[in-house]
């Protein structure tokens, strides 16, 4: 390995805290300074929430509800909004730390990893997700981890990677019931990529079952835990089936709105496509790349078609998460690593520069109807969400 300049030796010894601590400081600082920035840069008005720490939780976004419930249970001395900012900042910072570890395992140099992750942290969407402290953080993380798991599946193809992918799938059902519809589609990828399963229907069925079973186990557990079996199972199931039961009349506006934030990320998409189709042709990680690019598009389309009410910036946020997750877990060659850095640099420049150049009405899309803020009237975890 040492003779190959494209693959520097692994540097696992470097602690991920060299990324986590500065990232945490940066996000907290950004949240604290947001009102000031808001005044200084009027164009941010339409792009960012001006209410750092304001939690907007969709109904049955279980992870977010759990976080809110835990924060509610804290002694009164804790300010809820400040706590939310801290939680989301910690979540973002630790996610970057995990990406750093993954990159170190894939032989990225420390400076390359730090630079790339700094560029990720500087993406306007990432700052938005973090300081706004809404459900976007678990949302983006769920999609990002799936891409990581898909890459492991491509590389190892062992039972552990199959199991990991299956265990990560329920995350989608936990972040928003609407996106649970992607789970069966993704679960099919596990047997599809297995040559043995493609030949043997029993193997195919077994692999599919193993992939999708954790989702059923988690949902069943969730049903038992949050309702104490008092709610009807049909009502519970409806949560996951209704989102695809009817089409909206005019999906075009929402579709268009979602595309605007994604335009900033064109360099990232271009890089990934270029690498998969040309540089890394014939190599592994095709499955991971496919998922990384397809998931935001699927989200974008389904959100517009079925009127899920997911924030219009979410598909772009998911694209950042899946793209970076793919980059971090793909053994990119030296050129690939440099290309990724340049692509993210361009994304940051576009993200920050375009609104400033075009003013408040530039690339800023119309703000669509958001979910109402839900404050669970909870006095304990077992009665977390008995609304249905």
């Amino acid at each position, binding site marked *: 390995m040492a003779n190959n300049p494209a693959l520097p030796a692994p540097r696992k010894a470097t602690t991920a805290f060299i990324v986590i601590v500065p990232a945490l400081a940066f996000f907290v600082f950004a949240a604290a300074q947001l009102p000031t920035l808001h005044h200084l840069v009027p164009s941010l008005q339409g792009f960012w929430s001006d209410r750092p720490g304001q939690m907007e939780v969709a109904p049955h976004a279980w992870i977010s509800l759990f976080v809110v419930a835990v924060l509610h249970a804290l002694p009164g001395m804790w300010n809820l909004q400040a706590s939310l900012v801290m939680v989301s900042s910690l979540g973002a910072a630790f996610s970057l730390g995990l990406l750093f570890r993954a990159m170190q395992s894939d032989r990225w140099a420390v400076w390359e990893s730090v630079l790339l992750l700094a560029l990720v942290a500087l993406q306007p969407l990432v700052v938005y997700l973090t300081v706004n402290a809404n459900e976007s953080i678990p949302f983006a993380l769920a999609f990002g981890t799936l891409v990581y798991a898909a890459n492991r599946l491509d590389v*190892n193809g*062992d*039972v*552990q990677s*199959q*199991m*990991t992918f299956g265990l990560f799938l329920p995350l989608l059902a936990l972040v928003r019931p609407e996106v649970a519809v992607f789970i069966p589609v993704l679960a099919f990828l596990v047997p599809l990529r297995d040559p*043995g399963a493609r030949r*043997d229907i*029993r*193997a195919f*069925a*077994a*692999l599919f*079952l*193993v992939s999708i*079973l*954790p989702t059923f*186990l*988690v949902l*069943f*557990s969730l049903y*038992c*835990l949050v309702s*104490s*079996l008092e709610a009807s199972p049909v009502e519970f199931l409806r949560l996951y089936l209704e989102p695809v039961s009817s089409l909206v009349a005019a999906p075009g506006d929402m579709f268009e709105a979602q595309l605007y934030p994604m335009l900033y990320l064109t360099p990232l998409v271009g890089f990934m496509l270029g690498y998969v189709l040309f540089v890394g042709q014939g190599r592994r990680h095709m499955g991971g790349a496919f998922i990384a690019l397809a998931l935001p598009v699927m989200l974008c389309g389904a959100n517009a078609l079925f009127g899920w009410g997911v924030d219009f910036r979410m598909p772009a946020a998911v694209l950042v998460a899946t793209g970076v997750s793919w980059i971090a877990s793909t053994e990119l060659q030296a050129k690939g690593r440099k290309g990724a850095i340049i692509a993210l640099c361009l994304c940051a420049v576009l993200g920050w520069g375009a609104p400033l150049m075009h003013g408040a009405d530039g690339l800023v899309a119309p703000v669509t109807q958001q979910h109402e803020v839900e404050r669970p009237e909870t006095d*304990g*975890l*077992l009665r977390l969400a008995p609304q249905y």
Partner: protein
Amino acid sequence: MSRSSPVSTGLSLMPKGDQSALHIKVGQRLLAKGLLTPDTLAAAMDVQDRWGSHLGHVLLGKGMVRPIDYFRTLAEVLRLPFVNLQVHPVDPSLCFYGDRNDYASVGLIPWQRESGRVILATTAVTPRQHDWARMRFGRNGYAFVVTSPYDIFWQTQLLFRDEDSAQALDALYSRMPEHSAKVTMTVPQRNGLIALGILYLALCVVRPGDMFVGTMAVLTVFYLVTFLFKFLLTWVGANRNVDVQIADGDVRAIRDQDLPVYTVLVPMYREASVLPLLVNSLKGLDYPASKLDVKFILEEDDEETIAAAKELGMPASFEIVRVPHSEPKTKPKACNYALTFARGEFATIYDAEDMPEPDQLKKAVIAFRRSADSVACLQARLNYFNRQDNWLTRMFTLEYSQWFDFLLPGLDWLQVPIPLGGTSNHFRVSVLRQVGAWDPYNVTEDADLGVRFAQEGYTVGVINSTTYEEANGVLPSWIKQRSRWVKGYMQTWLVHMRHPYHLWQSIGPKGFLSFQLFVGGPPLVMLINPFFWLVTIIGLTTHSVRLGDFLPEPVAFIAAFNLIVGNLFLVYFGIIAALKRRYYDLVLQGILQPFYWVLHSVAAYKALWQLITMPHYWEKTEHGTSLQTKHALAQLGEVANGK
């Protein structure tokens, strides 16, 4: 680590050239006597270089000639008398227990005294035998006659049966009594347990509510930690890189002449019916027959199996070790006894119904050669060949797949003590002897040995080779077998928790925690499960019991988590195990595992009762009950009858 060479038969002690010439002469004479065909001799000559063994070893190892014929002919070539020690036994006054290892390794034994000289019965006459004799009896104080290695082996068994038997029984106890299960609970343990019990009951009387909540909280957290530990082990064990991977190419690359003598211990009791299958499996091992040292370990009162073994006409490398009667009559005691006669650098154990993958011994040798000297044992994976017999065998197969394909490799990866499985564990013989071998009083001596290895600074690895066994598909027999296993785990936990601080120091905090969760935890969980099941069923059917009504919310939440998430995922792990083995037919069957857990609890209560009333009693597992075994035996019978 010295490597044993096939010296103990005495055939390889001469300078190589002389010895080769001698064996060729013997071969030619056997040919002339019609005891060998030209083709057989040519085949043996062809193999001897490849195996790195002499012609004598090849002929005897492959069963091409009877040992008595071979050594009788050797005597003729050496112009010495041949003596059959079974007809003309040795004079016991000439033999000493201190020399018993020499008798086996040098290949001789003092036979008679004649005209002031000691006549030594030997398997070879080389400088080594002369040196040994000269040191004891002086330059002119001895003479030789020839005998067979089997005669020496038989004679030493007879001469030293009492000493060997006592050693097999109490070697560990006399060396390290605190590591022996001869005494189930020490006095301080018993007193401590009684004191704790009284204290607990007193507190229950004084503060019943608090004690109930406290007990529930402790058990709930214990369940949670156990579940998380199992989750971790399963996840880690699912990684394809966690066990020692020996590729087929590695096996092909190893030269037979570089392989050491390998001892295979096969303890059996009243299992004459499956003996032909076992012999067939062992003959199928991809290992030079001249370097195999197979010991059928039979109780001396098991005349039926002994007679069946004799009738099979096994090659000279397959020997019968008769274990003298003594109590307790356990498998570890029998193995200890046979270990005295082991000639191999490495040794393994197979059960009567085992079907190891043919290249398993070679894989073990390669893995040992690649490992550090601290690796004392390599555990091969176990699985079942009769999973389709009935529901019980299917559940058993799922359980074994999870145990050997996930949990043990997971423990290996965590570098914590591995409770060994009952068979197919491969040992460095020197280390095994050094730690006192198996505890004859522990009914899961294998699990105990794994922990003792860790305490002595040795490690255990897992290799990617499988031995297929017969799953116990008869419920009463299954309960017997499982109750023995659970009782053995209880014994092992009690033995090693005599000095918890010492255990902590010797295996570290990680190992200590793992020991509690993997050895102490399962019996406890099996015992208390029925109580929780009962509460759950009452709660669900009558709606009268709600966890949140009488437990603090965090405890109630964890309890509900254990009940629902924990149990569902334990079922999932079983299904994953089926997937790894590509037992697709078992994937859906895995859902039925909770019913199988009920049987565990039944066995656990039986185990607890036996631990108190007869801790050393060995519940014998009945083998040969599966359809496959019966079918295979019938096929072998047809072959033997020439059909």
